[in-house]
């Protein structure tokens, strides 16, 4: 694990509320969606919400015993905990139905003892990566100047031309270009940071390069725009299903 990941894991271990909230905000929707998918309609929205929280709560105990030498990806690790949380819930329900008095295995026991091969599909991995990029955009927004960030947003995410942006905001086109470059640089740094933070394996760390985020400026903007819009659609669908 790299230094950033180690620091983040330490924050989680230290019960840093902000770190937990960050994790919840960034990856909560992807976990919720996956749980709903596995549930196959057998579990309701409220239960999915509870299970997502349980997953993160389980993570808080598992984080103590996480072994980086096992080489599991961050996304796989998170998904594995989610799956066991769901399994535990289903066992509990079945045990209740049978009323056999057999106590289901605890989540800890299951996670430690099992070595279930997870079939992590590409869509989940893409969602996790898009979530990381959106987390980086959010961090950039929080540190950048409001107008400068909006210039980048209008150009890169809303696909407006430099002229349209300059007219709308009453600034010159060279200023638009300057602001764009500044925010783009900040975003590149934040992406590197976030990807490192939420990556446990070298393969995960190299995802940014695979997603054409190290290419030219226009390719970078296009890739970010695609990832942002796909995540936007996913969030809309996921949230819509819960409302």
């Amino acid at each position, binding site marked *: 694990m790299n230094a950033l990941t180690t620091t983040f894991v330490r924050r989680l271990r230290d019960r840093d509320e902000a770190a937990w*909230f960050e994790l919840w905000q960034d990856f909560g929707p992807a976990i919720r969606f996956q749980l709903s998918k596995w549930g196959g309609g057998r579990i309701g929205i409220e239960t999915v919400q509870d299970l997502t929280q349980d997953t993160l709560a389980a993570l808080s105990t598992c984080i103590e015993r996480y072994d980086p030498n096992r080489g599991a990806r961050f996304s796989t690790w998170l998904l594995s905990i989610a799956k066991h949380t769901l399994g535990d819930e289903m066992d509990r329900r079945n045990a209740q139905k049978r009323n056999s008095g057999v106590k289901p295995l605890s989540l800890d026991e299951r996670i430690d003892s099992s070595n279930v091969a997870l079939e992590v599909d590409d869509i989940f991995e893409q969602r996790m990566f898009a979530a990381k990029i959106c987390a980086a955009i959010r961090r950039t927004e929080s540190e950048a100047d*409001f107008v400068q960030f909006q210039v980048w947003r209008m150009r890169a995410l*809303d696909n407006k031309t430099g002229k349209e942006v300059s007219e*709308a*905001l*009453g600034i010159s086109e060279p200023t638009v270009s300057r602001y764009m470059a500044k925010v783009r640089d900040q975003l590149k740094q934040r992406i590197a940071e976030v990807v490192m933070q939420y990556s446990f394996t070298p393969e995960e760390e190299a995802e940014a390069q695979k997603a054409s985020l190290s290419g030219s400026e226009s390719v970078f903007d296009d890739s970010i725009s695609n990832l942002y819009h796909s*995540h936007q659609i996913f969030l809309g669908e996921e*949230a*819509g299903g819960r409302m």
Partner: protein
Amino acid sequence: MFSFLTGLVLTLMIIVGTTVLFVTVFLPLCGAIFRFIGRIIRFFVQETIDLILIPVALFVCIIKVLRAGLCVVLARWDIANIEIRAAQKRFNEAWNRLVALLIDNPLRVLAIEPSGQAKQPQVNQRRSTPTPPSKKFEGYNIVGTLQSGGSGAKIYIANSNHNKSQVVIKCFDITDGSALPQIVRESRSMEAAKGLGLIIEHHLTDERFWYATPYHNGDHLGVVTASLHRSSSHLNNQCLRKVLLYQQTLLQTLREYHLAGLWHKDVKPDNIIVHDERAHLVDLGLVTPLASAMTLTTHGTEYFRDPELVRRAMRGVKVHQVDGSKFDVYSAGAVLYFMLENTFPPHGGLSGFSKNSPEGIRWIVRRAMSEYDKRYGSIEEMLADVETILHSKNVSLVRPADLPSMTNKSVTLDSVAHKKSIPNQTTPSTGGGPFQHVSNKTRPMGVLALLAAIIMGTAAVYSTTTPKDVENTTNTTTLSAQPTIFDITTPPGTILVLDDCAMASNPEQCRADVKTALTLLTAQGWDITVDPIAEARTRVWLPENPQNTIEVATKLEHEQFAGILIFQEDENYDVVATLLTSQTTIRMRVVVE
């Protein structure tokens, strides 16, 4: 000629007579016959239904009883209880149907409506079937109910007997399952909202707490927005003007809240009723004073609540340490987004726009939903931007660069139109009928007058201290300089204990400390009472920053308490106790070994 005229008159008389006979006798007779036939048909249908359903209900009842018996054998008392209740319900149904079969249905054939089944008044579409509350609200006639929100309170629409106006009554009844903490929170919010003149009346008894607010007969913003978007895929200029008008009135209301030192905390489409082309903000359940010393809580509604609020609440920040009005600004931005997109912002401030909308309005949304320190500094700034677009000839042509927040131009805000002021009918007491003003006047006589003068003088000195000064004083006063609760003289009389541990960073630890402290105090001879009902009643009148004032002294006397002991967590996460009596207010450390 004569015979012709006679014949004509006779013919006319016959025609008129026949028509009169037809209208007055034949038609009503036909109507009565048809109605009777209708009743006969309905009678047979109803009798058949009842005949079929009585054995079904009895059968289910027997099954439920058997299941309950089995549960009793298995010692599953909770499930047995549920089964017994279900069986009882089925039995009641069977009995009611039997009564209908033998008495009610035959009576209906004779056009006699059985008693107790008179038609309920019609209510509008937002109301569900009126359910008469278990206890009446004095001075009001219930005409309908509204869907309950997350608070679990029952919400009624009522006509005031006093001035025939319609009001909304929100009622928390412990016997109906309302939780005491919810009542306490709601009563605090209500106390805060009283300053805005939004509460017509409130009452607190041992069993329930209810208050009345003005009723706005309209649809909530979600319904209105859906209808705006129904006509086309994107909003035209006329619709955009409506959107801006709603936003303007919403911001004007929020401005009044903020000027009164309050924060709504739950601004969302469901809490905005559109009536008379104005957006009326309702639901005062979370209204909080901006200067409150309480810990920030995460209450609110997802997608309309600022994530920064959650972040800060999780850090245990106090309300007065943040600018709560900025969280309302965020929510107002989310509401504007909702009106433009006909959906909530799934990605917070980063939510994209999928429908055509003017760049100027989008800019307002983004500015309002931006990071805490980058968004509009106040609701007035946002209102100025909204009004600039609203007053333009073409709302689609206003650029972000033209907005006052970008040009730093100062603008004069519109005056608030159609504001209905509520007469001062708020009763600070726990009883009385509608609009009956019950004041708690202190008789200015003798020793009491002298005491009042001293207290008022003290209060005046306190009131000249600004909150900042108070904060500085608090910060500079080290805990060790404060007395501990065990050092002070035992008060002469019963002390009511209020516990704010639910708001503490570690509620369990706080409660454990309080419990130990109370045990020790009791051992020292304190007469302590922990009474949830008295606590709820007290919280209604207790100020946010309690100090010994005339009102407090009067209330204590009325409640027959020597004082109130409030346990809460301070800014250093230590448990402190405040003893409030009619003579003094002491803040003390709670050192539990």
